């Protein structure tokens, strides 16, 4: 043991500059193209994820503008009905599966390891694999759109419309397989987050000292782990019904068309919270910084996150109130749908109390958070309205519902996300975003959003159904539709300003220091952008707001080796140091495994034998991935 200690380099043996040099040598990415492909640095992968997801946001936004162009006047002929069906399906699927969920997970991949004070995410190679799989799924969907073979069955692809009899061609298969891609990548990240949060927290970061964003990401990861298998089952059985003639959704042979709706929404409703919980975590983390006091009600906020997560599995039937389920079931789901307003309300009041007791500084992230609170409360109120069966029966599949879910999704998730981008941009790039452009972006987005989506409530009450490609001039919807279309240009302009600001600030933004906002959490304790090893030494945490309580130097833990990638593993509850654990070095094999997986998944839309033959390259890639290096894995 002693001899072994002599041959390795521990961080205690080096001075500060030497330590940084050694760590960079061990953790840094290799240069060149293959170095880029092979990297397993959670920050690099998360940045790729975020950039890719925002590209999908732009593409999805362009589709939305195309739809608004078509609906701006009655009997318009810009888009034919078939293309319109593809466009609204693409818009929904793209925004849910290629933007909202991945971008939230990407924020988790970037921030969780930094906030818990560790050097890399757990299972870093799985993380790289996850990104490549996600990218392949996105490319699949968009290539299909360009080939005029995009799904045209709505983003929830109800059978029998999406089933073998009515969903001609490969359109529905492409939808289902895109789901499989994104679920695979989401599940991979969820597992990484749970393990990172449970085992890699900095010493002293007991459960009651975890930053709220990390709590939110943890609950989100559990939701992913429990909800996503349902949709994987759904998408796989749909493909099997269509390809090999299984009878899962065929009532004539003992299947059940309603099974699809149950399985889809058993995933689909938690999905909303998979998007929303990270967003509230962002709010709970950003808000205290801009009022410069600890958040009010840490415990109720954590409990509300967990309660929302649990309750989210008991609401799915409220999407199905008009399919003719038993009254008792409908009443139960009405009650549970209204009950989820309770944890949401608790969080709102905790934030209001935080604002009340502090001295808010209205920088751009703070503006987006105020915008979030206003918009989300309105969306929550219409949510309570549609939770009631008689009301829902009236407005089901109308623009009222379209307005409601854009209020909760854009108001509830995109505003906090934009706040988070403005807030963590200095950490990710080392540069500040523009305060002036940011204000322009906020006001354009905030006003543009409300002008675009509020009239949709009225259109819905006037009976305008969703997913129609045009309407007749005699119907009383023309004026409001034109107004909505014009307002959507304002909303789009807001996003344009935001993207201009982001791209410009990447290059020309003023330099940010380590902690430009004077924030209390650990990610601000390292340089901006953080080095490949995140922290020179692993910090030791003594309370919830380590950078406020110890503004100078943090206490650190020492004794980790620097000549190999090594992390500190701590206990689940108390975060007592347990062991030194190696972290996987970079590898190109996750990339090849993702390519092999993509080939298998795409091929399997055309032939069931793909599962057999396509699994062989995957096996080869996995063998390469896990090839033993000859070095002892465990030595702690």
């Amino acid at each position: 043991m002693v001899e072994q200690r002599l041959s390795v380099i521990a961080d205690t043996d080096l001075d500060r500059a030497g330590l940084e040099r050694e760590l960079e040598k061990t953790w840094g990415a290799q240069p060149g193209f293959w170095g880029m492909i092979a990297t397993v640095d959670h920050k690099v992968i998360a940045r790729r994820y975020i950039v890719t997801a925002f590209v999908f946001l732009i593409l999805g936004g362009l589709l939305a503008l195309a739809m608004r162009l078509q609906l701006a006047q009655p009997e318009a002929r810009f888009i034919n009905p078939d293309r319109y069906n593809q466009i609204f399906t693409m818009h929904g699927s793209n925004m849910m599966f290629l933007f909202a969920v991945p971008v939230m997970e990407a924020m988790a991949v970037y921030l969780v390891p930094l906030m818990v004070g560790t050097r890399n995410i757990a299972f870093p190679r799985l993380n790289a694999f996850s990104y490549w799989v996600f990218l392949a799924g996105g490319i699949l969907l968009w290539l299909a759109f360009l080939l005029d073979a995009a799904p045209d069955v709505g983003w929830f692809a109800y059978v029998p419309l999406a089933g073998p009899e009515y969903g001609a061609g490969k359109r529905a298969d492409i939808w289902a397989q895109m789901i499989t891609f994104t679920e695979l990548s989401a599940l991979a990240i969820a597992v990484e987050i749970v393990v990172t949060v449970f085992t890699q927290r900095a010493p002293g970061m007991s459960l009651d000292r975890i930053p709220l964003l990390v709590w939110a990401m943890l609950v989100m990861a559990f939701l992913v782990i429990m909800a996503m298998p349902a949709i994987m089952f759904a998408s796989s059985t749909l493909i099997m019904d269509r390809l090999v003639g299984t009878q899962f959704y065929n009532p004539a042979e003992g299947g059940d068309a309603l099974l699809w709706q149950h399985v889809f929404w058993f995933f689909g409703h938690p999905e909303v919270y998979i998007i929303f919980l990270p967003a509230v975590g962002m709010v709970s983390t950003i808000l205290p910084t801009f009022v410069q006091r600890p958040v009010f009600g840490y415990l109720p906020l954590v409990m509300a996150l967990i309660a929302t997560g649990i309750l989210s599995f008991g609401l799915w039937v409220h999407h199905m109130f008009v399919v003719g389920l038993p009254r008792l079931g409908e009443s139960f789901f009405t009650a549970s749908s209204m009950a989820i307003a309770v944890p949401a309300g608790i969080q709102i009041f905790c934030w209001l109390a935080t604002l009340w007791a502090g001295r808010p500084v209205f920088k751009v992230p703070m503006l987006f958070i105020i915008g979030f609170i206003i918009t989300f409360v309105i969306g929550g109120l219409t949510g309570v309205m549609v939770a009631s069966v008689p009301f829902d029966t009236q407005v089901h599949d109308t623009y009222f519902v379209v307005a409601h879910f854009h209020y909760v999704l854009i108001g509830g998730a995109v505003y906090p996300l934009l706040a988070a981008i403005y807030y963590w941009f200095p950490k990710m790039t080392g540069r500040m975003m523009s305060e002036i452009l940011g204000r322009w972006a906020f006001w354009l987005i905030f006003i543009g959003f409300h002008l675009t989506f509020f009239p949709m409530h009225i259109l819905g009450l006037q009976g305008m159904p969703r997913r129609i490609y045009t309407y007749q001039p005699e119907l009383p919807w023309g004026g409001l539709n034109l107004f909505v279309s014009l307002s959507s240009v304002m909303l789009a302009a807001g996003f344009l300003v935001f993207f201009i600001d982001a791209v410009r600030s990447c290059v020309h933004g003023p330099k940010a220091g380590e902690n430009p906002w004077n924030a209390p959490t650990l990610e601000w304790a390292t340089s901006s952008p953080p080095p490949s090893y995140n922290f020179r030494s692993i910090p030791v945490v003594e309370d919830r707001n380590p950078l406020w309580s110890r503004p100078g130097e943090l206490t650190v833990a020492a004794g980790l080796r620097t000549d190999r990638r090594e992390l500190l593993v701590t206990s689940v509850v108390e975060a007592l140091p347990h062991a030194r654990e190696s972290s996987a070095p970079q590898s190109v094999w996750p990339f090849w495994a993702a390519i092999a997986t993509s080939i298998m998944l795409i091929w399997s839309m055309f032939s069931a034998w793909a599962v057999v033959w396509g699994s062989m390259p995957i096996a080869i890639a996995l063998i390469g991935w896990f090839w033993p290096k000859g070095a002892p894995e465990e030595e702690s």
Partner: protein
Amino acid sequence: MSASVSRNSSIMLPAILLILFALTAALIAYLREPRQYRTDPPVSEALEGMRLMPNGIAGTPPDVYFALGKPYEKTAYDLSQGKRLYTWFGCAECHGEGEGGKGPSFLDGWWLYGPSMVSIAASIRDGRPHGMPAFGSRITIDEIWQLSGYVKTIGAYSASVNAPARNDDRQTRPAENRAPAASLFDEGPVPVHPDQGPSP
């Protein structure tokens, strides 16, 4: 130094991939096949112009059929429309789910008037002796072509990925995308049509 490499790479890589993606997309966008919901009247008229052999068996499809890219026997949408028309116009009354009945079977690999599209389309449009009615006055010509393409897939011996999948009904045979003719063909002790030469 290597930190800056990794920072550039994280922006460069998605950028390179997206450009590649856009180029591929633009290239493939040439190949796309938009669905034709309503055939142009001139095309429709031209589709009538089958040039059959004098005995009404086999011949040359109209030129416009090639100009369109032979859609009716290979695009999934047209084939699935054909399947729907098969039900709507009561083809199953005589031909069953392809196993035949009053009319000949499509699953046995035998085509009384030959397996070409133009023969099948002519059979549907003009009718045939011994009970096959003429549908030319009941459905449009492009629907006849869709139906012909579908009828061909029932008897196909190798499955096409574009062939329709099962219906949401009771199942009597594998769906068209699983080549039912190939799995169900059974010559039996006596060849099916000994008068017409050796079996396929």
